[in-house]
């Protein structure tokens, strides 16, 4: 700046030259920022869509696609990375960039979809799948379902249905989890009870456990969240529905729902069921592992926790899983939490993206995924895998896929669940009667949401 004075006056020409140099520099900087991200777009050969491929994967495709999801742990993301790199080596010309999102996945994905820069392929949980599908941001998976060598019949029907919207498939199940009855066999033996199959047996078993278990850590026969997670399964078992057939109206406060909730609140009132804040453990897995309770209605995510529970390595061997007890004249039902691989409707490479999803959900891809043991394979035929024979608790949970009900209630699912849960909580904590609580929630949903 010291030589500024020597320049003193300046010609207009020099000034303009200076400005344009600065401008050009900025422009170049902008370009170089972009080139990393968009280099694939220019060379992408399958922009025209799904016509490129038959299943053989021999047709070369040129595309760079991105895959996003969440990863429960490093092992899980390492497996996806492996599966993806195998896919890349089998599919010349397709590059896959795997970017797990660690927190606030749904919020981030929604923002990306809204802004038009979502990954090509990503996980979608069934609870918000319908809100995505109804906003037309997902790519149809029908071409994949229709291709000859891809057997969608092998998937559990309820799981495929969870990812259909207006009859069109917009996602392929990645895996799923059902709720089952986790129980401590040592405590059951001590109380001389068998795993219950009906609600009344269940109640009797809990009473017997309450009176007979001597373990000093034992605090209550059963744990359940104050917002009554298992109520949703009991509702279906008792012949109820959350929404009417056409989805235009909430109907869960009809008799089946009220009876199901009365069953749960009855257990609570009789001291047979504790909520986490009554216990030292914040969730079912810990309560079971610490022997604070004898039973919990829990999903397969509880198993890795028990298997790796270092404070009491023996406990894992004592915990078995049974199907949920149901009303004696009721139907088999449980809740399924499922996640799909879906694709963005905006993807530049629909065919390559579908090809990736095909590979990840193929017989082999899914089997390798399921063997991680966090969630269950969405393919029925996998019940015959050696892995499930060696892991009978997971097999029990897998069998329930047949009669499972996805936790998903149309495009306004989240608003519905947000209005039901506090009312279930009110009933469980004795603030309201079950029928009062459910009617309040139902009315609010019918007035405000649907």
């Amino acid at each position, binding site marked *: 700046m010291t030589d*500024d004075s020597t320049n003193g006056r300046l010609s207009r020409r020099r000034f303009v030259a200076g400005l344009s140099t600065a401008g050009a520099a900025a422009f170049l900087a902008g370009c170089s920022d972009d080139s990393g991200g968009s280099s694939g777009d220019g060379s992408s050969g399958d922009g025209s869509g799904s016509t490129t491929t038959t299943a053989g994967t021999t047709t070369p495709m040129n595309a760079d696609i991105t895959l996003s999801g969440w990863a429960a742990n490093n092992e899980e993301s390492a497996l996806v990375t492996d599966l993806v790199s195998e896919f890349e080596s089998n599919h010349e010309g397709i590059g896959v960039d795997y970017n797990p999102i660690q927190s606030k996945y749904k919020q981030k994905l929604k923002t990306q979809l809204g802004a038009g820069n979502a990954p090509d392929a990503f996980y979608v949980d069934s609870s918000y799948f319908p809100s995505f599908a109804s906003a037309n941001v997902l790519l149809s998976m029908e071409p994949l379902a229709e291709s000859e060598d891809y057997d969608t019949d092998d998937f559990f029907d309820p799981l495929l249905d969870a990812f259909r919207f207006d009859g069109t498939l917009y996602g392929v199940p990645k895996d799923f989890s059902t709720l089952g009855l986790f129980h401590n066999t040592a405590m059951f033996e001590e109380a001389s009870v068998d795993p219950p199959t009906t609600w009344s047996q269940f109640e009797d078993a809990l009473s017997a456990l309450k009176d007979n278990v001597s373990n000093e850590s034992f605090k209550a026969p059963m744990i359940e969240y104050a917002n009554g997670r298992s109520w949703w399964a009991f509702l279906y078992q008792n012949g109820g529905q959350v929404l009417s057939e056409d989805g235009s109206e909430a109907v869960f406060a009809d008799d089946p729902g009220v009876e199901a909730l009365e069953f749960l609140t009855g257990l609570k009132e009789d001291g047979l069921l504790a909520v986490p804040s009554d216990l030292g453990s914040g969730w079912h897995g810990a309560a079971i592992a610490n022997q604070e309770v004898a039973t919990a209605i829990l999903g397969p995510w509880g198993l890795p926790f028990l298997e790796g529970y270092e404070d009491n390595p023996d406990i894992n061997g004592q915990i078995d899983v049974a199907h949920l007890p149901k009303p004696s004249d009721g139907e088999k039902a449980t809740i399924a939490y499922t996640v799909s691989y879906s694709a963005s409707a905006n993807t530049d490479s629909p065919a390559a993206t579908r090809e990736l999803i095909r590979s990840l959900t193929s017989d082999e891809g899914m089997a390798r995924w399921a063997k991680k043991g966090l969630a269950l394979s969405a393919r029925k035929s996998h019940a015959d895998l050696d892995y499930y024979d060696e892991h009978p608790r997971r097999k029990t949970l897998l069998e329930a896929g047949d009669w499972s009900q996805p936790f998903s209630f149309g495009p306004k699912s989240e608003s519905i669940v947000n209005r039901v849960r506090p009312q279930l909580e009110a009933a469980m904590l004795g603030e309201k009667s079950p029928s009062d609580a459910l009617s309040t929630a139902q009315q609010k949903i019918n007035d405000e949401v649907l």
Partner: protein
Amino acid sequence: MATESQRSLVGDVLAGTRRILASAKHRVGITEDQNNLMGFAFVAPNILVFSAFLLGPVLYAFYISFQEWSILAGAGTWVGLTNYVEVLRPLPLAYTGNGLTWRPEVLTSPSANLWWYALKNTFVYAIGTVPLQIFGGLAVALMLDKRVRFKKTYRAAYFMPVMLSGAASAVMWRWFLAGDGVINSVLPTFLEHNWAGDPGTALGGVMLMAVWGGIGSNMIFFLAGLQNIPEELYEAARIDGASAWHRFRHVTWPSLGNTNFFVFVMAIISAFQVFGIALVFSEGGPVYATTTTVLLIYQRAFEEGAFGEGAAMAFLLFILIFSFSYYQYRYRDETEVDY
């Protein structure tokens, strides 16, 4: 490194900009005395960042509050004041044939209207925490401003909760206050209670946590304020025979006016914005007991995707906080302390 010619080029650009601005200023009648170009240059980065990342999004959110907005479509339909009406109705004060009627059930039942119920929770929280945070902070600061052994250790101990993340302390307090928690183990049996799990006491738990966390940060401000008070004032008071209480009442307290103002306004604003600790402590439950306004906004917008309604709620809250702060600010002008 820049070459000689590049450097002179930059110099040329700067000089040229200056000339253009000078002629523009001449035209709009700004004199050389008001030449604030350098000042503007200094604040420009802040103004730019502020506009791009705060003002812009805020104005956009205001626009969204009149829409039924879908974040997935990135578009919405204009619905006018519908979102505001939906949020506010039914009002706790209603006009019936007999004039204005007070409807307390709107504030006491989450089923009637969640906005008013959440606002009630927020007020209860603010009224319960702000005075304790302030007077607690002041009391601790007064104690630690004296010559006490291990003064620094105490200061660090009281400041510790401020350094802890809200989420971590919420998890910790949820365990403390559980049926099986530490608090119950030190209470006599007849007082044992599931503090965190009972809708009647859960908000109290969140408030307790906020007071515990708020005392430390206020303590730091008060310690700074105390050290600003000139020692001569105390000397003069002592010579006049003022007791310890009188010295506090007539020297310390009035001299802390600036600190009090700052601490009070900040405490109120953060009380109205309470979110993280309530979310982690109990996710707004049990039975909406800890659903505060910001938590409700978060649930509506980010969980349920009702961004228009969420934005409308956010603006109602903004109006509330803004009018409060503005009133405080005006009132403050009359009472500023000069040493």
